[in-house]
């Protein structure tokens, strides 16, 4: 079942490759239906994952390169079930938003589908080799997607983004290979490795430098300060759907892989670095929040905002207690959906006005495009952690989790919600409220199912899980409990 999540987009990419590029409509349809199919599968997987039994479900294991012990070993636990749902949701909305791409539709679709497949690959793999393989595979299509279909300063942006993320990946690859060697199992299998390291842990010093490689290597893609600077400019240059996937999902691979690899394989080393991660995460929250306050480009504001919110995710992760880590995963989901919605909406406006500068847009757009304005206000409210949206529950969980462990950083993080409110409300006011100072006669509101569905879908997800957070949290909690059961020593047992 879950192999289909990877195979369907890959097969569709292959099909598109074989089609003549004039048949744009068919190519679009293939992309759309392929993402629709994976969306349904992701919903199915999420719904049928049983939190009560917990552990890894939907397991598949097939030998691949026997001599090196590489197997295609896939499965879903409580955490990845939620991340798969996130990716299904965002990639489907992204495919719908991609209709606005008019040039080289064929090539775009191929790269887009490869991107979608490889992210599903990361979330389902239980083999370190495949995990890394899919992770790198996700980075590659990003380069042409931004470089060719992007806007404004795109060559610089795509170069920077790719180099940064690859740089981080190389650091973590060193860690992964060392772990493979150190275990001496001739296997990349995560579960086997985990059991091995639980029985005979590596010495503390080795764990520390391995954890450093993994945490700060994957920290790059999680935009951990100060390796975040690829993120705002990368999103600004990327086409909407790519910004959506990148800010929404790809960025979450960082914390996800920290949980999967660092936390499970080198727990003691991870514990050593977590206070430093907590400190840096506060810098993320406040520094990026203040940077967002003075940006003039809409995508830069949301870009810095996402750097700021990743700070909350990392703070939650750094708590190493059940509440904090669960909150971090919930925020990965909630922020992913919210960021996708924000980038989709900005892209919708940019496609028609060809500017994203706040002062060039001139304000008062709410009158002209009420539907988009309402969606944007809701997105901004979700982002600033308003009750009713799942972001709020996630932030509350992180605050409660972090409060036990890092009281001072928590105070700073709570202050961060005020900073968020300031730059977002200012954005809303300057773009959508007030008098129309520049007239955009051609600007049209979202019309019809094709244009409205992505926004409605994303916001509805935030609202549903905001009102019934336990739908998500029970899965996440099952996953986190599993983690705790495997590494009781590093988790705080007392509340």
């Amino acid at each position, binding site marked *: 079942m879950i192999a289909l999540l990877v195979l369907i987009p890959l097969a569709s990419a292959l099909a598109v490759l074989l089609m003549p590029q004039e048949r744009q409509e068919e190519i679009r349809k293939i992309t759309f239906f392929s993402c629709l199919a994976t969306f349904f599968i992701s919903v199915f997987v999420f719904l049928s994952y049983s939190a009560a039994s917990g552990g890894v479900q939907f397991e598949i294991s097939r030998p691949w390169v026997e001599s090196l012990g590489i197997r295609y070993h896939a499965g879903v636990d409580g955490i990845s079930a939620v991340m798969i749902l996130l990716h299904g949701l965002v990639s489907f909305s992204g495919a719908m938003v991609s209709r606005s791409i008019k040039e080289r539709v064929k090539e775009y679709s191929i790269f887009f589908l490869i991107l979608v497949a490889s992210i599903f690959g990361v979330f389902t793999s239980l083999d370190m080799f495949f995990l890394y393989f899919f992770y790198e595979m996700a980075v590659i299509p990003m380069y042409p997607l931004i470089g060719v279909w992007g806007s404004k300063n795109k060559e610089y942006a795509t170069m*920077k983004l790719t180099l940064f993320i690859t740089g981080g990946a190389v650091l973590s690859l060193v860690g992964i290979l060392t772990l493979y060697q150190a275990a001496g199992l001739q296997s990349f299998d995560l579960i086997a490795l985990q059991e091995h390291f639980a029985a005979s842990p590596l010495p503390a010093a080795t764990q520390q430098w391995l954890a450093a490689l993994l945490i700060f290597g994957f920290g790059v893609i999680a935009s951990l300060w*100060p390796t975040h*600077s690829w993120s705002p400019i990368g999103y600004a240059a990327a086409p909407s759907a790519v910004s959506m996937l990148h800010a929404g999902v790809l960025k979450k691979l960082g914390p996800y892989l920290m949980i999967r690899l660092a936390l499970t394989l080198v727990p003691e080393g991870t514990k050593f670095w977590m206070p430093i991660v907590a400190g840096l995460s506060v810098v993320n929250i406040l*520094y990026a929040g*203040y*940077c967002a*306050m*003075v*940006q003039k480009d809409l995508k830069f504001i949301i870009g810095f905002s996402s750097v700021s919110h990743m700070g909350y995710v990392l703070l939650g992760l750094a708590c190493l*207690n*059940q*509440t904090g880590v*669960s909150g971090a995963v919930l925020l990965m989901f909630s922020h992913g959906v919210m960021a996708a919605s924000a980038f989709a909406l900005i892209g919708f406006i940019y496609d028609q006005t060809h500017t994203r500068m706040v002062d060039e847009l001139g304000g*008062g757009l*709410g*009158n002209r495009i009420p539907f988009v304005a309402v969606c944007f206000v809701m997105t901004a*409210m979700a982002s600033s952690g*308003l*009750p*009713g949206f799942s972001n*709020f*529950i996630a932030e*509350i*969980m992180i*605050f*409660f*989790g972090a*409060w*036990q462990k890092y009281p001072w950083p*928590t*105070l700073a993080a*709570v*202050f961060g*919600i*005020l900073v968020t*409110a*300031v730059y977002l*409300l*200012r954005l809303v*006011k300057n773009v*959508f*409220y*007030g*008098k*129309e100072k520049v007239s955009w006669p051609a600007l049209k509101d979202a019309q019809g199912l094709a244009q409205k569905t992505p926004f409605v879908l994303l916001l509805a997800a935030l609202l549903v899980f905001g009102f*019934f*957070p*336990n739908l998500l*949290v029970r899965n996440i*909690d099952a996953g986190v409990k599993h983690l705790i059961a495997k590494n009781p020593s590093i988790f705080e047992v007392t*509340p």
Partner: protein
Amino acid sequence: MLALGWLILFLPLMACLVIAGTTLKHEKISAWIACGALSLSFIFSIILFAVLAAQGFPTLQSTVTILPLEHLRLEFGVLIDRLSLIMLLVVTGIGSGIFFYSMGYMKEDKGYSRYFASLSLFAFSMLGIVVSTNFFQTFIFWELVGVSSYLLIGHWYQKDEAADAGKKAFITTRVGDVGFLIGILFLSSLSATLGKQTLDFQALSELLGHPAGHEFILTAICLLVFCGVLGKSAQFPLHVWLPDAMEGPTPVSALIHAATMVAAGVYLLARVYFLFILSPTALSVIAGIGAFTALIAATMALVQPDIKKILAYSTLSQLGYMVMAAGLGSSSAAMYHLVTHAFFKALLFLGAGSVIHALHTQNILEMGGLFRKMPVTAWTFLIGFLALAGVYPLSGFWSKDEILTLAFTVNRPLFWIGAGTAFLTAFYMGRLFFTVFLSEPKWKKEPHESPRVMTTPLLLLAFFAATGGFFGLGTFLHSHYDQAIAWNFSVVAGSLTLSLVAILLSYLIYALDIPLLKPFEKPFSPVAGLLIKKYYMDDLYDVLVKYVQQNFAGLCDLFERVVVVKGMVNGTAQLTGWAGDRLRCLQTGKVQFYAFAFSAGVTLITLFWIVLR
């Protein structure tokens, strides 16, 4: 019975969802859905009250768990006791009146359906605070009333002032909420130390029943929770958003920014009074802030020309009274004043709305002589004015004198501040009333009395504003945490005299135009300037935002561009490029050079080896 409580809470939310989802285009239906839902809530509240009255008002609670984590249980529920029953009646009752009034007032507005959807969302959020069973739920709805207030202040979002005012209100109250949330975090760890981690009001009040030590942390918690009150109930120094919030439609000002939402802070004080009673230090800070707010707001009201802003400052001042009462040791006195104030202030705002509706101006200096033109508005406004001024036997008289008597026995300096405020209150309200209704007419177009849908709520509210003192609310709400208040004739007589003198003075000055103030104008003009400038508080915040916050943000951005991007990132790239450039020189392509380099290398290594040996 609790099912009724849940229904009361969720009816307005359903109305909001139905309007937003289906009837945005059908304005009449939207309005009727909103009004119908809240009226039903009101009727259910009355039924609930009647049924529970027969049982002697037991405390009922039902909760559902929305997040059953091991170390964090987030619950959501309905708590029905005397306090929440009264507040339910006030919110749904006054709310329904104002909803109906809005039907007339907002006629022909472009965002008619949107208005009623937001109004219903507000009613839901406010009721959520009222029936809340725990701090977490209170915080949820605390934020939700913030956002519905933001939406309603900015209802006319095309107006820059309205958009700015909404933003200001949201952010200013959020400053308080940051403190509130930190207070909740402290409270949860304190409860964990005391044996059981909980945020539930009833559980906490039992847990904190016999406190041993923890004084410092309790004071900190109280003051942090009070930060939330500062924001929402607009107390000094977070009061600046409320006058600006008058940019919203007048019924919104009446319901949200006078009668209910701004009173939520006082309600919270009463709800968790078991906590505040544990920290005398926090209580005295609270009393001081309340008294100070009451006084400075009353002085600012003296010079305002805008009818709604006068009422807004008056609201600030009266909220200050309530907070002071809670700080002085009686939450029931605070709640009593909250209820009577809700009646007469809603009445005054709706009356002002009726005047604005007729004249299309908010400047009292452009009004005058409306008494004959708008008799219902004028008479009801008079009742509201006298009730606010505390004239016997109207509702404000009873509740205000309870607070003053309390202050007289507990804290003499605060009593004098309160008495001074009472004098100022009567005077600025006299100025407002006489200028608008009795002075020479200054309007050009003939005004007319408002339609029936607007005057009926006025009459109903006037009835309650007049008789609110006779329902025994003070004793009904009295809890065992409160100080007993003994009736003191001299205090009552004194404050009544003060009010009457102030009203007489204002009558002479503003209705009869006798220039009593002439000799004071010159020496006091700097004071008047200070008052018109609102003590420069807004300017101070502007400076803070514009220079401190913005410069700090600019500094971060500069650091990002120069150090992070140019220095670290592009620097690394340049270093790589430079190194490549240098290393390229080694690739000369000349065999002789390679041979030389090779032999030189061998020689060096050999030498090195020999020397080391």
